């Protein structure tokens, strides 16, 4: 391993790497993100290595294991370069055919290609509708590089932003560039990053100690962009952090990552080690005399530990609970010293801004929200996965163009953005441009970028209950409005879904929600009523139906629905009898079956089992 001692040496080394690589040499890339691991990508890549070897092709074809491509539900994803042929749902058994047909005969394996609604096959990854409408600037490199190879990162221009910042920019210039780019924090609050850096740099500190932290706690259910970035492109985050350190003159950095992310921790650890070996991290970075090192700190996985002050308490080894932030963490943070905390995705944006300039960056997005944002699109939607889009794109484009709409021809009802404490945005606002401010205006928030799509079979009261339950469990329990208030909110919602709701309950929820929002100590509490208040705002009629008519319009709340069998449709096949765990269904063969309401627990298994749609919910 050689230690790079200057920007020139770095550039020279990059040229060496590129010269040794033949862009026309076939290369099989296999997604090895956590999603594809669940689809046995490990065995797929072993199959490739083995099969290539047995055909004596190991020298002629490169095999590379990359990070997450975002389209995880179609894993394992295999892309073959230089043609960029994209195969989806590849199983180990498909490997010999891919090698024989595509690598040797140069033909396509049709059945593994993407097929659109009209049955048309699509060959290139970028042309698949899911990808076509995205703008992958931050997430884009994931699919080209092996996260465990610093050479791959260098080959796509890695660490050139660091060299530029370190060797040809003053700290003030770096901060100025970030400020002008309009970058706002991707961790939830959307605080202007440049301003944060500047306050931290200017904060007085004895002995000049300042800390830099990367927040990789990512606790929102369903969100995993930070994980995918850390797993798939750890060097981009390290590079961003070193640039930040340079700007605020910090010498100690931490990545706080939850222990449930073993692959992220592993890949990050390898990347840190490599960066140190090459002289890109540690003492005398690139011969500039600047020292900065990063440690990994593994969190226990409490949602609240993502909050800045709780995170720092946890890093210090104390209970992860927030404190009042009247003195900001940029002045008094970790160990009482000025500390700059940014989200994983925020850090990953930094090298791009330094490389391409603030003017390039600020062209993307809307007036007050610049750049792109990665969302995790889940729920009742055809294409689930990670999508990166420019700020200002409408919800409609995300849900219908990229997400491919709602499955089974159902109707789109609402989308919940911003994680558990975000709000629900109804169908009527589907043309809302997505940026920090517009989402807040609509009663929701950007949060870390979760997006849960709901169709007509989702009950909004039940949904609000689900999120409040999550937050009640994840509240640290320090302050009264959040701990007791959320718990009582959950009681009221439970009553409503169980048919015990009182007419005054809806107003009580609103009153309680306002108080929790206004008086909680930290942002977990002050945003927690969002799911309830936004669903009351947009779906009040649904709450009223539960309370006044004891009816669940979506047919979800078990206490308010009954299952019965339609005389007309029932063929007497008896399938439902076998499906029922309560043995509540009886009937003779080929005759109408009936459900004993006393025994029925409204699990809905018979409805799923019946092939004739004879089980009706009312």
């Amino acid at each position, binding site marked *: 391993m050689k230690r790079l001692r200057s920007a020139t040496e770095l550039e020279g080394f990059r040229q060496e790497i590129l010269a040794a690589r033949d862009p026309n040499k076939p290369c099989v890339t296999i997604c090895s993100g956590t999603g594809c691991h669940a689809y046995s990508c490990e065995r797929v890549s072993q199959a490739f290595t083995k099969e290539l070897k047995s055909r004596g092709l190991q020298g002629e074809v490169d095999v590379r294991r990359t990070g997450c491509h975002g389209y995880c539900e179609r894993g394992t994803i295999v892309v073959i370069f230089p043609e960029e042929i994209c195969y989806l749902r590849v199983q180990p058994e498909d490997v010999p055919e891919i090698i024989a047909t595509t690598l040797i005969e140069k033909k396509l394996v049709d059945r593994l290609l993407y097929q659109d609604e009209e049955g048309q096959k699509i060959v290139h990854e970028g042309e698949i509708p899911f990808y076509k409408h995205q703008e992958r600037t931050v997430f884009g490199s994931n699919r080209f590089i092996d996260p465990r190879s610093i050479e791959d990162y260098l080959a796509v221009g890695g660490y050139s932003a660091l060299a530029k910042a370190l060797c040809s920019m003053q700290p003030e210039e770096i901060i100025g560039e970030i400020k002008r780019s309009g970058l706002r924090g991707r961790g939830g609050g959307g605080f202007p990053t440049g301003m944060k850096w500047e306050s931290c740099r200017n904060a007085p500190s004895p002995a000049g100690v300042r800390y830099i932290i990367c927040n990789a706690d990512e606790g929102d259910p369903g969100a995993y962009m930070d994980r995918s970035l850390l797993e798939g492109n750890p060097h981009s985050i390290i590079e961003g952090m070193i640039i930040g350190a340079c700007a605020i003159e910090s010498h100690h950095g931490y990545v706080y990552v939850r222990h449930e992310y073993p692959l992220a921790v592993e890949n990050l650890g390898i990347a840190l080690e490599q960066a140190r070996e090459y002289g890109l991290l540690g003492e005398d970075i690139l011969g500039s005399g600047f020292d900065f090192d990063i440690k990994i700190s593994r969190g226990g996985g409490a949602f609240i530990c993502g909050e800045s002050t709780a995170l720092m308490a946890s890093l210090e080894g104390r*209970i992860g609970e927030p*404190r009042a932030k009247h003195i900001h963490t940029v002045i008094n943070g970790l160990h009482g010293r000025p500390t700059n905390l940014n989200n994983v995705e925020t850090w990953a944006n930094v090298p791009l801004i330094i490389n391409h300039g603030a003017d390039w960056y600020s062209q993307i997005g809307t007036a007050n929200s610049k750049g792109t944002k990665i969302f995790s699109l889940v729920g009742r939607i055809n294409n689930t996965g990670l999508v990166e889009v420019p700020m200002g794109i409408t919800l409609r484009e995300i849900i219908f163009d990229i997400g491919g709409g709602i499955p089974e021809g159902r109707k789109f009802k609402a989308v919940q953005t911003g994680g558990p404490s975000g709000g629900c945005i109804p169908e009527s606002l589907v043309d809302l441009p997505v940026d920090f401010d517009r989402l807040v205006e609509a009663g929701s928030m950007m949060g870390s970028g979760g997006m849960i799509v709901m169709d007509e079979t989702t009950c909004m009261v039940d949904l609000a209950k689900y999120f409040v339950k999550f937050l009640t*469990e*994840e509240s640290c*329990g320090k302050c*009264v*409005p959040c*701990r007791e208030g959320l718990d009582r909110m959950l009681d009221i919602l439970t009553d409503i879904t169980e048919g015990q709701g009182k007419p005054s309950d809806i107003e009580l929820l609103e009153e309680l929600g306002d108080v929790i929002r206004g008086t909680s100590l930290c942002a977990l509490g002050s945003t927690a009523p969002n799911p309830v208040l936004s669903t009351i705002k947009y779906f009040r009629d649904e709450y009223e139906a539960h309370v006044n008519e004891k009816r669940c319009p979506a047919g979800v709340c078990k206490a308010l629905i009954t299952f019965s069998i339609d005389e007309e449709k029932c063929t007497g096949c008896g399938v439902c009898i076998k499906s029922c765990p309560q043995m509540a269904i009886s009937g003779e063969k080929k005759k109408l079956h009936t459900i004993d309401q006393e025994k029925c627990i409204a699990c809905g298994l018979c409805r799923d089992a019946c092939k004739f749609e004879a089980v009706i919910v009312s």
Partner: protein
Amino acid sequence: MVELTIDGIKTSVPEGTTVLEAAREMGIIIPALCYHPGLTPYGACRVCIVEVVKGSQSLLEASCTLPVAQGQTIITSSAKVSQARKVIIELLLAACPNSKTLQDLAASMGVNRVRFKIKDKNCILCGLCVRYCKEQMQSGGIGFVGRGTSRRVATAFGETPEECRNCNGCEWICPVCERACMAGSLTDGVCGRCLNLAPVETCPVCTHCSEAVGSSGHRVY
């Protein structure tokens, strides 16, 4: 010195003072439960909230943890503040229905019903005992365990720890562990023990017992 306006009155106090202390200095009463002059502010109970006016907007902040700032404008008892305090005390009562301190506070704010489910936990997690133990006794006998609604004050492994100096301070400082005063021990409507003669404004069955509500102990519901 920092100049600020509290309830329309200008004052100036040394830097580092909290808004709660500044207001108390002026004789303005702000209720507080987790605050104690001898302990570090904690900001958990939220009954000390005040309105901080910023231009045309205003925010609610806990005054016990809010440091004074030059030119700050504070309102300690607006409709917004008392509305929020009422809901908070209602929540506290739902968690500790038998605390006399809480009942008195509720009564003084005109709260005479609890609309939430009662779940008697006998602790409001104000942390006074934990801080007292740590900061005044330099011990670490008790601490918080658990998260969310399962959070509670406990000793390590549920045993009396070696660090405990048997000072009883934790019990003394607790606003809710105190035994509820029963009607039987009333003499002339004043409980001999606490002699708390705080005026009671709103209780419909008030007999000026000095308790907040009712004559059959401190039950508000």
